[in-house]
Each structure stands twice: as structure tokens, then as C-alpha cells.
């Protein structure tokens, strides 16, 4: 199977664990990882951000830049220490005390992430590290979650894409057999007492209310607090999102002109 770029009509679903390995071959080198930029942004009340390269999903509504689809062409390798220094520098410059890696799947390149978190955990200038993940690798590997649980400043945000397996494949490109992995990640995070919450792309233009209720039902089955603390996301018209939708056969003009009415 060739390396998947963006979803097209009639695409062949891929195993996200296979794509994670393939992507790691491109974006990880020893304990270094590819990044395209370091900066701070206003979300989370102001947060220093390492814009990293590489993901194991291919969501057609994704806002990340083209480095997601063509990781070979974007970014430079940074060691964990270089990434840490750049993140702290951005935090200092913008006067913020939060940090994250974004625009990618941060749990790829495990050695890099763990070394980075070790340094963040010891640095008083950073008080909170938001670890945004699609949950695939945390779902398949309990020990990875156990390792993350040792970092006191980490708060994990697991981002769910669907409430049923068929929709999971249609939105992410991943095989439906992988649908349960993010839910498994939630169980693992609970097991190891990690601070976390769940987000879900429940935008009513993407997800029916019955699927949304099914997603919430699945979360309640795991834990009522996790379900109640669910962050419901909407899809924004970033340049890359518009192109990805068009390529997938979803008319972005019609999509974004639909009135947004929450369930």
C-alpha cells in the first residue's frame, strides 16, 4: 500500500498502526522529531506550541498544514532538548506558562516525547503541558500511558472522531477495526490516574445526533465523569480543511454555509 496523503472518494482504509510506523520512519530520527515552527497562540488562554509533523489519521476535516499529508517535504529535525528550548523560549517571549505539541500526533516518536516531557516537568516556567492525541497509540500500549502518568504537568486531551465504526473510517480513513482504540486509551488513562479529558468532533454538520448520543453512551459506559466533561468541537474553514473536503467530494461551500444548530 502506498503512503496515504489525503482521503479521496473510494479510498482504501489503512491500519493506523501501520501508518504510525510509516510516518515515524519519516518524522522521527533517534530522539529527534520534525517540527515546522515554534510559537505561542491564544488557545488555552495562551500556550507555547511546537508545530510538529506527522499523523496516523487522514481526517478530511483536519486543519493541519500540508506537512500532515507530505511529511517528507516539511519540517526540520529537532532533538528533544532543542524542541524544549524552543518551546520555553516561545513561552517566555509571549509570557505564557503552558505548552503543547500540536498539528500532528504527538505520541509518534515516543523517545522524543518522553525526553521532552522529562525536561518540561523539571522546568518551573511551564506549569501545564497539554498533550493532544487521537488515542491510537495510548489505546494499543498501556505501558506508554503508564510512562506518561509519571509526568505531573501533563494533561491529556483525547480527540474522538466518531461514535460508530463506519463513521470512524469515513472520517479518518482508518480501518473500522481500529475504532475501539481511542476508547481503550481512555480506559488506560483512567487506570493510571492521568489528568485528561475527551474532545469529540460532534459538529452537527458532520455527525448526526444519534451518532453523537451513541458516542456519549460509549463514554458513559466507561466513566460518567469523562462523559460529562466532554468537549464538543466544531469544524472551522481553514484553507487546508477546505481543500481536503473538496478532494474528498464534500462541497466545502455547501458545508460551511449550512446553519450551525447544536443538538
Amino acid at each position, binding site marked *: 500500500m502506498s503512503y496515504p496523503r489525503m482521503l479521496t472518494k473510494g479510498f482504501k482504509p489503512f491500519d493506523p498502526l501501520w501508518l504510525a510506523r510509516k510516518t515515524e520512519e519519516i518524522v522521527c530520527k533517534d530522539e529527534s522529531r520534525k517540527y515546522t515552527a515554534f510559537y505561542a497562540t*491564544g*488557545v*488555552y*488562554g495562551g500556550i507555547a506550541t511546537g508545530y510538529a509533523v506527522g499523523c496516523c489519521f487522514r481526517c478530511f476535516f483536519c486543519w493541519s498544514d500540508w506537512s500532515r499529508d507530505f511529511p517528507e517535504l516539511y519540517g526540520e529535525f529537532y532533538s528533544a532538548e532543542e524542541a524544549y528550548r524552543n518551546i520555553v523560549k516561545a513561552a517566555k517571549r509571549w509570557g505564557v506558562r503552558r505548552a503543547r505539541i500540536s498539528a500532528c500526533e504527538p505520541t509518534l516518536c515516543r523517545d522524543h516525547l518522553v525526553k521532552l516531557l522529562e525536561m518540561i516537568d523539571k522546568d518551573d516556567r511551564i*506549569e*501545564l503541558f497539554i498533550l493532544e492525541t487521537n488515542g491510537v497509540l495510548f489505546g494499543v500500549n498501556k505501558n506508554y500511558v503508564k510512562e506518561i502518568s509519571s509526568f505531573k504537568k501533563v*494533561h491529556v486531551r483525547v480527540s474522538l472522531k466518531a461514535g460508530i465504526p463506519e463513521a470512524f473510517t469515513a472520517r479518518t480513513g482508518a480501518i473500522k477495526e481500529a475504532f475501539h482504540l481511542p476508547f481503550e486509551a481512555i480506559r488506560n488513562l483512567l487506570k493510571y*490516574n492521568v*489528568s*485528561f*479529558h475527551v474532545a469529540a468532533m460532534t459538529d452537527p454538520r458532520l455527525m448526526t445526533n444519534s451518532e453523537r*448520543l451513541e458516542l*456519549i453512551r460509549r463514554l*458513559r459506559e466507561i466513566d*460518567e*465523569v469523562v*462523559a*460529562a*466533561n466532554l*468537549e464538543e468541537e466544531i469544524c472551522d474553514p481553514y484553507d487546508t480543511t477546505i481543500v481536503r473536503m473538496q478532494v474528498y467530494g464534500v462541497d466545502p461551500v455547501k458545508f460551511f454555509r449550512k446553519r450551525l444548530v447544536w443538538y
Partner: protein
Amino acid sequence: MVLKIFEVAEIEGEDYDLHNLIADSKLCHELSYLSKYPPRVAIAKLYLNRDWREAVLKAAKMYLKAKLR
């Protein structure tokens, strides 16, 4: 009070801190250490606190009952 945190999280759960959404004077002393966090982070941390776990679970059930009515 915990139910109130769930309610403000729905309005603004990530981009503002708890102290921006609930006046410090209204947060009981025991919860003041959470005021620097966004509401969803605060809830997650409170749920890990043994002394508050039951209260968070109770509030979550009440919140979900109202949300899914």
C-alpha cells in the same frame, strides 16, 4: 460548586481559566488551587483528588441528566 464548574465548562471549557469564569470568592478555599486551570482541566484534576472524587461523580451524573434530557 462542582456542578457549576461543569456548567461553565460548556460555555468555555478550554480557553479561559476558572478564575475568569467563576469569581475566586465563590470558589471554596479547598478548590482555589484549581482556579488557574481551564474548567475541563480543573474537573479532571479534581476527579483525581480522593477527597472530591465522589462529589465530582455525583455532579457529573446530575449534569448529564440535565444535558441529555
